[in-house]
C-alpha cells in the first residue's frame, strides 16, 4: 500500500513540476495515439460499415475473422510491422523503423480491426432500422455507408475512443517498432516498461497513474459530449 501512495505522490509531482522529459513523453504518446486512431477511423469505420450493409458469399466468415482479429496479440502486429519496415524488409527504403511514424503504423494496424468489428455491429443495427426507409428513398447500399456512419456518429465516437485507448495503452508492438529510443520514440507505456526494468517501481506506477488519468479524462470528455448531443439529435 505504501508503494501505491508513494506513486500517487510521484505522479502528482511529475504533473505539477512539468519536467520537460516527462512532458515530451506524454506529448508524444498523445500525438502518435491520436494520429493512429484518426487514421484507423478513416480506414476501419468505412470497412465496418461496408461489411454491415453488404451481402456476399463468405460474409459470415469475414465477420468471424474481424471479431477474431480483435484478439490479435499486439506483439504479432509489432513483429509484422517490424519485418515490413526493417531495412531488410519490403518497406525498408522508407527508413522509418524506430521513428514515431512506425509507432503510428503499428498502432493503426492494431486499432483498425477493433474499429471495423465494433462499427460493423453498430452500423448493422442502424442499417436494420433504416434499411426499408433508405431503400424506399432509392438509396443504394454504397450511398447508405456515409449516411449510416454519420447517423451513428455518437456511438462511433465511443468506438473511436475505445480505439484511441487501445492505441494509447499499447506497449508490445510500440516497443518493437519504436525501439523505446530515449527522446525519440519513448512513449508512456514503454517508459513504464523501462522504469519497471530499472526496478523503479513507484516511478513506473506513477507513470501508469498519469496514463490512467489521461484515459479517464478522455472518456469523461466523451461522456459529456454524449450527454450534450443526445437531446440535440435524438
Amino acid at each position, binding site marked *: 500500500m505504501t508503494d501505491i501512495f508513494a506513486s500517487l505522490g510521484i505522479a502528482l509531482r511529475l504533473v505539477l513540476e512539468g519536467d520537460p522529459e516527462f512532458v515530451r513523453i506524454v506529448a508524444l504518446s498523445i500525438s502518435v495515439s491520436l*494520429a493512429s486512431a*484518426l*487514421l484507423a477511423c*478513416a480506414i476501419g469505420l468505412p470497412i465496418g460499415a461496408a461489411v454491415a450493409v453488404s451481402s456476399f458469399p463468405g460474409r459470415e466468415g469475414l465477420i468471424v475473422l474481424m471479431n477474431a482479429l480483435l484478439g490479435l496479440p499486439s506483439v504479432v502486429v509489432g513483429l509484422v510491422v517490424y519485418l515490413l519496415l*526493417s531495412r*531488410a524488409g519490403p518497406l525498408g527504403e522508407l527508413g522509418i523503423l524506430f*521513428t514515431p*511514424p512506425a509507432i503510428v503504423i503499428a498502432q493503426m494496424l492494431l486499432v483498425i480491426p477493433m474499429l471495423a468489428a465494433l462499427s460493423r455491429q453498430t452500423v448493422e443495427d442502424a442499417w436494420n432500422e433504416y434499411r426499408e426507409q433508405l431503400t424506399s428513398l432509392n438509396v443504394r447500399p454504397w450511398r447508405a455507408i456515409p449516411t449510416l456512419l454519420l447517423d451513428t456518429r455518437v456511438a462511433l465516437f465511443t468506438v473511436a475512443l475505445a480505439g484511441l485507448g487501445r492505441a494509447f495503452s499499447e506497449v508490445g508492438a510500440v516497443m518493437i517498432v519504436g525501439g523505446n529510443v530515449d527522446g525519440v520514440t519513448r512513449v508512456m507505456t514503454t517508459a513504464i516498461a523501462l522504469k519497471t*526494468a530499472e*526496478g523503479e517501481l513507484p516511478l513506473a506506477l506513477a507513470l501508469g497513474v498519469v496514463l490512467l488519468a489521461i484515459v479517464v479524462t478522455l472518456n469523461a470528455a466523451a461522456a459529456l459530449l454524449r450527454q450534450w448531443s443526445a437531446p440535440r439529435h435524438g
Partner: protein
Amino acid sequence: MNRKRSSRLAALLAASLLAIAGVAVAKDFITVASTTSTEHSGLFKHLLPAFTKDTGIDVHVVAVGTGQALDMGRRCDADVEFVHDKVAERKFLDQGYGVKRFDVMYNDFVLIGPKSDPAHVKGLELEAALRKIHDAKPPFVSRADKSGTWAAEVRAWKHAGIDIAKQKGPWYKETGSGMGPALNTAQAMDAYILADRGTWLSFKNRGDLAILVQGDPELFNQYGVMLVNPEKCPHVKKELGQKFVDWLISPEGQHTIAAYKIHGEQLFFPNAR
C-alpha cells in the same frame, strides 16, 4: 460526411504525420543497437550527451538483448553494435556483417541471491557456487533471452560441469526477459540470478537480494563496439557511425566511461587498446 469535410480531415492527418515524422529527422543521428544492461544501468544517459556535444550527432539507442541487437545489425536496422558477447560478436564478424570490432570497456557479472543464502554459496568461486545451487535447487532465474548475460551464464554452468539444458528442473526459471525484469522476478521469488554489475548497481527494487559471488575471473564481462558493414547494408551511416566508434575508444570517450559512477562506485572500466 461531405467531401469538403473529409478532405479537410485528410489534410489534418497528413500534417500531423509529417509533424511527428519531423521530430525524428530533424538532426543527424545514428542508430545504435545495444544491450539492456547498458541502458538499464544509466550509462547512456551519462555517455551520449557528451558525445552529442562533441560531434553534434544524436544517438538513437535501441536497447535489447545482445542476440536481438546483433540480429538488428544483420537486418541492417542499426548503424553501430555496442554489445557484450564476444562469441556471438565474432560470429557476426565472420558472417561479414561487422567491419571491425573494438574492445571498449568491461565490468563484471555478479551472482545475486537472497541474503539468507539457502544454498550457502557466499564467497565461493562461481563454479563451486553453481554446483551447490544445482544440488540444493533453490529458485534460480535465467534470462533465457540470448542476451550476453545469458550466454555468460550458460558458459558458466558448462564450466561447472553441469549441462543445464538437460539437468534443469522446476527450480530453474527461464523468464525470457531483459536484465531488469529478470531481477524483478528474482526479487519476488527470492531466487539466485546472474546479473551484470552495472544494472545491479542502478537497480532500485533489490528487496532481500545481495551480491553473493563476485571477483571470479570467469565473471569478466567485456563490451565491444563495431560499425555494421556498409557493404552488406548500404543504408548504414558510415561516417557518423565510425565517428561514434572512434569516439568511444578515444581518450575522451574512455574517460567519460570511467567517470560514470553510482554512489561513488564505478560501473564500467574502459579498456580500449
